Each structure stands twice: as structure tokens, then as C-alpha cells.
């Protein structure tokens, strides 16, 4: 255990990982209930284009990824609304185009290297101090905004029409939630990588939803599962020399399974 107290990189990974995973889980509850669970998966792929663009233009990839993810998230939303395209279709279009652009840019930038791979599979243990604070800062802001709008988000997720009728600006809040999702996905990408970030959004929330008998419980349980997964996952990964991302995701899945069995009994 003392390794965790002495190694700065472990502390950083742990701190950033826990904050980001909890933000992911919190949003995940809303996304699942809005039948939008796949948005994380889709946006993560678009993020690949952002990272590649960042590497190509020699701009911090994380900032580029944030911009691209937010734009793509809003694009998916508009495509659904205006073109009357189903949500999963819109996500499929954006994610594949994002990935395609990413591949082109990465080739042009000659950066199909370790760097890009760390984005694909996550490399939380290599997270830099500046990125830690950015991640924690953004994750805290996301959580804060969700808590501030907790009842509104819950209302419009549960019963959009009644929420509108009671004067809640559903359109604006939809956009807000979409932006928060995009930001959180990009942060999650730093923790477990593009290919696994969807797990961080969906699995803890899905596990929490197994046992929750009310909304508050769902939120709290999901956050706890996210917390435990990252904490145990990183410890295990460090001592057993496993990849951190895979370990975190498998652990959260085991917790999900446990909850599932517990519910059946």
C-alpha cells in the first residue's frame, strides 16, 4: 500500500481516475434512462479524430478532442432532431466518420505510434500533472452542474412533456446535458482509452440501476461502483502488472454481475 503513498504518478492516476469515473457514472444514469447509452461509444470514436488532429496540428490533443467531441455531440443531436434520424443511426454515422478522419489525419501526421495507442487503450498511469488537474477540474464542474440541475434533468428524463409543461427549458437543458456528456467522454478517454470509455459510462450506472428503488439511490450506487472499480482496479493493475484500463472495466463488470445475481435472489 505504501507504493500508493510514495509514487506521485499513482496518486495522480488514482485521483483523476476516481473523479472522472464518478462523473461518467453520474451522467451514465441519465444517458441510460434516456436510451442514449451508446452515445459514449460513438463520441469516443469521434474523439479519435480530435486526438489525431491535435497531434497533426501539434496542439494539445486533449483540448482538440474536447472541441471535436462537443461539436460532434451537438451534431448528433441536431441530426436526430432536424433530419428525423434515429439516435443510434446518427451515432453510427458520426462515430465511423470520426474514426475515418482520425485514421487519415494520423497517417498524415505520421503519428501512428505509441502516443496514439495510449489514447486508444488508455494510459492513466502515464497521466501528467497538468492533465490531472484539468481532468479533476472538469469532472468536478460536470458533477456540480448535474447536481445543480438534478431535479430538472430527472424530470425531463422521466416525462419530457410534463417537464415542458411545467416551464422547464427542455431544449436548452438537452444541449447542456449533451455538452456535459461530450466533456466527460473525453475525460474518460484519458482514464481507460477511446475503446473502453463507454464502459465507464454504462457499466457502473447499469449496475446501480439494478438495485436502486429510487433515483437518488441509483445515482449514489453508480458513483460508489465507479469509485470502487477505479480504486481496486488501479491497485490490482499496479501489483499484478495488468493494464489499468482493462482491469478497471472488468472489475466494474464483475460488480455489475454481482448486483445482477443479488437482484435475482
Amino acid at each position, binding site marked *: 500500500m505504501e507504493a500508493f503513498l510514495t509514487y506521485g504518478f499513482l496518486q495522480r492516476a488514482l485521483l483523476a481516475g476516481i473523479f472522472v469515473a464518478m462523473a461518467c457514472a453520474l451522467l451514465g444514469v441519465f444517458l441510460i434512462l434516456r436510451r442514449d447509452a451508446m452515445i459514449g461509444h460513438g463520441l469516443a470514436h469521434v474523439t479519435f479524430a480530435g486526438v489525431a488532429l491535435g497531434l497533426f496540428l501539434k496542439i494539445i490533443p486533449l483540448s482538440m478532442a474536447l472541441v471535436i467531441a462537443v461539436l460532434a455531440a451537438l451534431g448528433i443531436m441536431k441530426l436526430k432532431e432536424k433530419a428525423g434520424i434515429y439516435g443510434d443511426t446518427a451515432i453510427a454515422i458520426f462515430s465511423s466518420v470520426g474514426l475515418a478522419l482520425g485514421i487519415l489525419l494520423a497517417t498524415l501526421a505520421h503519428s501512428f505510434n505509441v502516443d496514439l495507442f495510449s489514447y486508444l487503450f488508455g494510459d492513466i498511469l502515464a497521466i501528467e500533472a497538468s492533465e490531472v488537474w484539468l481532468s479533476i477540474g472538469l469532472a468536478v464542474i460536470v458533477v456540480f452542474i448535474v447536481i445543480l440541475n438534478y431535479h430538472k434533468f*430527472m424530470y425531463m428524463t*422521466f*416525462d419530457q*412533456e410534463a417537464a*415542458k409543461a411545467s416551464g422547464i427549458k427542455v431544449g436548452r437543458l438537452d444541449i447542456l446535458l449533451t455538452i456535459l456528456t461530450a466533456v466527460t467522454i473525453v475525460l474518460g478517454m484519458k482514464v481507460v482509452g477511446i475503446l473502453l470509455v463507454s464502459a465507464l459510462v454504462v457499466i457502473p450506472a447499469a449496475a446501480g440501476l439494478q438495485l436502486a428503488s429510487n433515483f437518488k*439511490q441509483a445515482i449514489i450506487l453508480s458513483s460508489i461502483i465507479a469509485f470502487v472499480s477505479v480504486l481496486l482496479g488501479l491497485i490490482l493493475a499496479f501489483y499484478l502488472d495488468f493494464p489499468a484500463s482493462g482491469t478497471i472495466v472488468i472489475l466494474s463488470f464483475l460488480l455489475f454481475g454481482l448486483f445482477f445475481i443479488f437482484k435475482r435472489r
Partner: protein
Amino acid sequence: MDLSANESKTLIDVKDISFSYGPIKVLQDVTFPIQRGDFLAIIGPNGSGKTTLIKIILGLLKPSKGKVWILGKPAEEFDDWRKIGYVPQKATHIDPFFPASAREVVAMEFLARNKFPRLTKREEDLCIEKALKQVGMEHFKNWRIGGLSGGQQQRVFIARAIVNEPHILFLDEPTTGVDSETQEHFYDMLDTLNKKEGITIVLITHDTGIVNKHVTQVACLNQRLVYHGTHAEFCRAGAFKDMLAGHHLISHRH
């Protein structure tokens, strides 16, 4: 707050409203007022535009022609929606697995918009409990909404609609799927809200028995407003028969 509007008798003025879904005309030139203290029943066959009309009043749909005035303001400028409670038609769009307790469903409406002055947690709880008590659901407050029967869910939605102590309450076929004994209680409860608390009630219903027993005003809709007036006149005018005739017409059109 606009005092003059508040004191006037007309809460809502529906002026010359028309609406179509694409080429399909749903409402044509509908005009009528809703007065303070009314217990108004809107009746009419399936597809006659009742739900559409209420959605227009609530600002959920924009009319293609005409205007709605709420408490003296044009609907698009009105923003005090807490004064208006709404129970949507049969909440089939509700996810049965949604993890919200009955209490939380009421809290959504109550806490979604900030209160001034701020209430303490305890005061909030009391208001929410009071609403649940008014519909006789206080013992179910911790039940998951999807775990309640259809009629019980409906009561929770009514609690949600009255928790902000609205001036006017819109109910769209609130008793579909509710057993007849519960219906009795339910309409007695609406009566109490109407007479004791002074809440104006607008009720869409197919249940003409109820219309006879409780309501003061009747609006009979069939794309156009076929009849609007007091319940007593409505019986004399035999407008009811016309409406039934209309019913056949419209059901054949589909």
C-alpha cells in the same frame, strides 16, 4: 405579478385557434374562455382534437392561427407555469423501470424550479407529503412508480400536478384504467379541490356520467367547438346527441 389580470375572472382565453398536423386539420377556429372557479369538461370523440387543444394552451404546441391568453398574458410571454398543473393523457410513455419513487415524481415538479424564499428540507418534505396525502397516496411514497398500479400511478401524477398549488388544473382523461370505486373517490377529490381550494379544473373525459355529476361547464369539441356553455344548458340543448352523431362521423373517417 399582474394584479389586474389576477383579479379578473378570466384565467385563460382561447381565441380563434386553428391547428393542423401537416395537411390534417385538427382544430378550427376554437374560441372560448376559462373562468376562475370553473369545473369544465371537454368532451368529444377520439381524434376530435381535445389533447391537441390542451397542449396548445400549455404552450407545448404552437397554433397555426389564433392566440391563447393566460392570466392576461399571451401564452408565449407567460412564464409562471407553476400556476398551471397538468396530468397528461394516460402515462403510457412512462418507463415502467424508471427508478423514481412516488415521492420523487412529485419532487421533480416541486423542486425543479427554484423557490423564493427558499424552503428548508423539512418544509419541502411537508409540501410533497401534503400533495401525496390529498390523493391518498402518502403510504406509497417510497414505492417505485412502475411498481404501482395504473390507477395509483395516475394519483401520483395528480399529486405532482397539484404540488405547486396551481390556480388551474388540466387533466387529460385521468380515470382511464381506474376502477369505478376509485373513480368516485377521485372525482370527489377533484370536487374538493375545485370547491374548497378554489382550483379551476379543466377535465377531458369520455365519461358522461361524471360530466352530469360534477362539472359546471361543458365544451364539446369535434375539430370545431360544437358547444360551450353551462352544464344545465348543455342538457337542455341536446347538444349531447349531436356530439354522439359526430362521433360516428369521425370514427368512420379513420
